[in-house]
């Protein structure tokens, strides 16, 4: 990260383990505010483990995660949702739950909240689904509604685990636009990606996870200029590159 750039999230000599097996060690680095950082690595490289560590769901074996973002402003969209789709809730109600953590448990929603909820749904192109139950949504519509919840939450740190998996092309475009806008507003975004084209369009910085270590580089380096970084990213992504058999 260049001098003078601010960071709400820093990893200091972080070591993370799953079931007493070290998955990542000596992870050092800062995530730039207002930047989209792609997290890449082969299956089992530790992407989900790192996200769990950052979100405080996994206690580090050593080192620490320094995060100045308050909990109610941190959002995570995991690949495997714990969301109960049979729950009788509409899209609008789901989006509105995003305002709950900062608004408090006792106060009801006021007109300002509903207005903001409608703005968020319009931005994501889901206004016409406002009253539709969650169980009747497609994968893409559901993903838009969940991003809507993070927009309502006014998240300052957003972690997404393969947000474009199993969603339609139109949703990919909408989400790309919204994520760029959120980054422009100063939100720190970390996104797990497996697709080089999506990485090229979305991310500015890249963290490559490989053999238990993390390496910070730029999307440009991965895609064009630096063969070493590009090769390691390709290896991490499982994509055959120069010299591959």
């Amino acid at each position, binding site marked *: 990260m260049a001098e003078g750039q601010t960071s709400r999230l820093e990893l200091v000599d972080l070591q993370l383990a799953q079931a007493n097996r070290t998955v990542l060690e000596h992870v050092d680095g800062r995530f730039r505010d207002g930047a989209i950082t792609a997290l890449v690595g082969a299956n089992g490289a530790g992407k989900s483990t790192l996200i769990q560590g950052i979100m405080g769901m996994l206690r580090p074996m050593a080192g620490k995660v320094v995060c100045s973002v308050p*909990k109610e402003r941190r959002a*995570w969209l*995991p690949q495997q*949702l*714990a969301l109960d789709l049979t729950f*009788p809730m509409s899209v609008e109600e789901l989006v509105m739950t995003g305002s709950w953590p900062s608004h408090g*448990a006792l106060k009801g929603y006021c007109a300002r909240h509903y207005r903001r909820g409608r703005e968020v749904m319009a931005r994501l192109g889901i206004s016409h689904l406002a009253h539709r139950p969650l169980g009747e949504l497609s994968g893409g519509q559901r993903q838009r509604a969940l991003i809507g919840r993070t927009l309502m939450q006014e998240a300052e740190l957003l972690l997404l685990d393969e947000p474009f998996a199993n969603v339609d092309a139109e949703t990919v475009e909408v989400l790309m636009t919204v994520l760029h806008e959120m980054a422009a507003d100063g939100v720190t975004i970390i996104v797990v990606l497996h697709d080089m084209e999506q990485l090229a369009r979305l991310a500015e910085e890249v963290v490559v996870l490989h053999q238990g270590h993390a390496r910070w580089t730029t999307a440009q380096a991965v895609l064009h200029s630096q063969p070493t970084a590009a090769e390691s990213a390709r290896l991490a992504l499982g994509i055959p590159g120069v010299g591959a058999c």
Partner: protein
Amino acid sequence: MLDTLHWWLTSPFDYAFMRRALVASLALSLTAPVLGVFLTLRGMSLMGEALSHAILPGVAVAFMLAGFSLPMMMLGGVLAGLITVALAGGVTLFSGLKEDAAMASLFLVAMAGGVTIVSLSGNALDLGHVLFGTILAVDSRTLLLVALVSSAILLSLAVSFRALVVECLDPQFLTLQGRHAGWTHTLFMAMVVLCLVASFQTLGTLMAAGLMLLPAAAARSWSSRLEGMIAIAIGIAVACSVTGLLVSYHAGLPSGPAIILLAGLAYVASIALGPYRSLRAGRSRLKANALPRRSQLIP
């Protein structure tokens, strides 16, 4: 005509014991179905049923130590219920066994222990009272306790409503906000135990969960919205309580079972006729998805 209506609908409540029974059952009808809606949405209906039996040993020990003292029996019931919830949670945490499986094992042991204790310390009448309840024997002190417990549960529900909704929908979201889903779950289970203990005096430990679960299960067939389900479940519970008391008075039937049987009828009618999650809804869906007849196919 008016005289007949008066005789059927209002004259039973000329008696103080019927008025007390009415107020007690209405107080329970305002709280138990709300908890029942959350239980059914979480797929925990059988947990509620199991918990209603798990309070029995506490009630029985209190009965043995203090005789027929309702506050002591309620305290015993709450303690036994909370201990069972904690034990089931502990077994789940340390053995990996599902919470409902742990609860099913524990409630059977608790039920057998409770019946044995009551049999050893009392007589068949006492056992019948604990198992089946006697809503018509509710005195002013019991009524006050039921009203206090119901009010406390309603207040707790109002405060924790959003957390309960979010915990049902997406527990991970709640945990990430620093509001531990585990605490919300514990508070919810404590409310269920308290409600069951308040219900046992009127409906007995065998049927205490009836007013909680049957209206809630029926309401799922009439609304696809949470608020709608809660309102309909309360409506069904209130209607069944009032009608059950009247039927029991006029037909000389036991009141608790009359109320639960009516709730059962409401459930069957809802499953058959409701617009959602019912036989009718299933038939409509099948019709909509049916292949067109040969004559309707475009050549």
